[in-house]
């Protein structure tokens, strides 16, 4: 009877609608997928009532998004990583139609008007995508290029750019960093000079995620000659305007499925009505959404970190060394326990910051701490776990090596570790006084 049960279960797995997921990884990542595809890694409580910030609706959202990822995204990750680009319009349309691109955006523009905890739930669940590039690209669309527009844009502007971005019909990108200005946002050089009722834009942007596929860019440019924190504005820039040159797709050591572009602006004319909110307020607007952006990155990385630990446990359980599983060596299971402990600590910080933020508090200090810790823990964890995979960890056939490469960006992008430290010190009042 047991054999029949086992056979039926196997039958279900083999024939299930997830069959194409199995076939797509034959040859590559086969070891990793075999080990992990059936693992349930959530350390959240089973009962919705016990969770600190999530309700039944959050769990229903996560379950639905997981299904979408399993059906529409994960089967293609290998291919898209190899090609160096994922089809942003196609994937965003699928996500947008299911309502996942505007969970806390206004309902008038296709959003769901839910609070930020739902964005965190989406970010967490996107961590189930088997790479870092695609969640990052989605994060840019939902929480980097659109928050200021949603909050300060005119109705006309929101209809033209926000609504289609939430529906998944338009791909957005963010133009802030430049070749000469990364952490030092105030020293960007791109200029938008007013001529009649148009701005003429000259300059360039760097590290533009989605850059080669975007329909519009949320551009930060100097619009006057005033003090550096008060002379910048955010402008909705259609990417098909004459003078917009996508110079190159940057070749990176990780995040391969996300296309990153260097963009130049050569006398680009854009109507003045495309400005978001008030002229001169661009810098302030962009800073306002940093808390959301950083907590989003934390939520996303945590799930992937869980996955890496689980896959490492499963791999080391079946891999033998000196006649017993690698996992049985105390150094190994003790280290994995240490890493999981750190993950849970970071998760608690995330939920605390989210709960406070949803209630209307400023969580800049906690969000910066969480982002700082995430960048460092992700590197430590992926490096430590990779070691236990031995030679296999060094191959392109496993998930841990992909995240080893992808995670390195967290300490750099979205606010470098050093910037986070500066913010925390400021809040702790330790910076040298003027």
């Amino acid at each position, binding site marked *: 009877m047991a054999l029949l049960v*086992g056979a039926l*279960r196997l039958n279900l797995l083999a024939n*299930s609608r997830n069959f194409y997921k199995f076939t797509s990884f034959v040859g590559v990542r086969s070891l990793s997928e075999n080990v992990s595809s059936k693992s*349930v890694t959530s350390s959240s409580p*089973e009962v919705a009532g016990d969770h600190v910030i999530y309700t039944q*609706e959050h769990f*229903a959202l996560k*379950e639905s998004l997981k299904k979408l990822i399993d*059906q529409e995204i994960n089967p293609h990750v290998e291919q898209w990583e190899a090609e160096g680009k994922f089809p942003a319009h196609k994937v965003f349309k699928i996500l947008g139609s299911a*309502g996942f691109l505007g969970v806390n955006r206004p309902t008038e523009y296709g959003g769901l008007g839910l609070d930020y905890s739902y964005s965190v739930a989406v970010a967490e669940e996107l961590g189930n995508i088997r790479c870092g590039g695609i969640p990052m690209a989605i994060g840019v669309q939902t929480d980097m290029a659109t928050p200021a527009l949603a909050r300060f844009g005119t109705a006309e502007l929101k209809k033209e750019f926000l609504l289609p971005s939430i529906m998944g019909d338009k791909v957005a990108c963010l133009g802030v960093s430049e070749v000469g200005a990364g952490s030092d946002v105030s020293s960007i050089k791109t200029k938008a000079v007013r001529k009649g009722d148009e701005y003429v834009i000259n300059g360039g942007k760097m590290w533009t995620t989605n850059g080669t596929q975007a329909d519009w860019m949320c551009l930060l440019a100097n619009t006057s000659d005033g003090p550096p924190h008060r002379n910048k504005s955010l402008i909705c820039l259609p990417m098909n305007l004459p003078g917009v040159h996508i110079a190159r797709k940057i070749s990176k050591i990780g995040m391969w499925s996300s296309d990153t572009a260097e963009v130049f602006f050569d006398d680009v004319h854009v109507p003045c009505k495309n400005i978001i909110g008030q002229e001169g307020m661009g810098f302030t607007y962009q800073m306002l959404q940093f808390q959301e952006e950083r907590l989003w990155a934390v939520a996303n990385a945590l799930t992937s970190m869980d996955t890496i630990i689980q896959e490492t446990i499963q791999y080391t359980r079946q891999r033998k060394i000196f006649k017993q599983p690698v996992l049985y060596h105390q150094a190994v299971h003790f280290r994995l326990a240490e890493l999981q402990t750190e993950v849970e600590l970071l998760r608690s910080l995330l939920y605390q910051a989210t709960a406070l933020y949803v209630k209307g508090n400023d969580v800049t200090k906690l969000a910066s701490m969480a982002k700082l810790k995430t960048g460092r823990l992700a590197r430590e964890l992926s490096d430590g776990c990779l070691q236990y995979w031995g030679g296999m960890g060094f191959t392109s056939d496993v998930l841990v090596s992909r995240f080893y490469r992808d995670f390195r960006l967290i300490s750099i992008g979205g606010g470098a570790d050093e910037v986070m430290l500066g913010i925390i010190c400021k809040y702790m009042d330790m910076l040298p006084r003027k």
Partner: protein
Amino acid sequence: MSGRVLVGVKRVIDYAVKIRVKPDNSGVVTDGVKHSMNPFCEIAVEEAVKLKEKKLIKEVVAVSCGPQQSQETIRTALAMGADRGIHVEVAGKDYETLGPLQVSKIMAALAKKEDAQLIILGKQAIDDDCNQTGQMTAALLDWPQGTFASEVSLDGDKVKVVREIDGGLETIKISTPAVLTADLRLNTPRYATLPNIMKAKKKKIANVKPADLGVDLTSRLEVLKVEEPPQRQAGVKVETVEDLVGKLKETGRI
């Protein structure tokens, strides 16, 4: 015809979870373990919602028998497009012994009460693999049944069902009211979109007790023991065909 379809949905341990047997061998560990809707029930819900979208039926009612948590399973069905839910409350000892016979009695009673035109169920649940509820329900109601359905089409008061059978596919035509059970290839269930998940919150779930339906839950079965399947033994490699035949003779297989 009422145009109403009852869909049974069962809350089971998630298919991806590694099942563990309780130390006392009385059952499997369910506390703190991830549960979700039985995959075949998802297919059943999807089929019902598709029929409604084609305007062939008017209302989809999701039914689940079990403890409080079964309401989450009904909510998933509502998020997929069911119109309302019925939670038949069964808890404690009664829930432990709840099986196809009891559930089919409940479904039959509800079908009469709700004047259902169709009952769609999953072909079996992935926890007990009984594959009985659909058949028993049809027998109790004296309705025709189309089980292991891989294709369903409504035509007036008749239903054409293509069934997956051992020899291949069998096509039958039955009259409504009828019971159908969904097989794997009937459809691919949709993922609930976020707007629908939020809308599902407002849909009604009625609470019903088995006694209200006049159903006796007494079980005629007693589980004596639950054991893990035997550990898979290592195989033996042989070099030649002669070796293989020798080994088979040795172990008395031939």
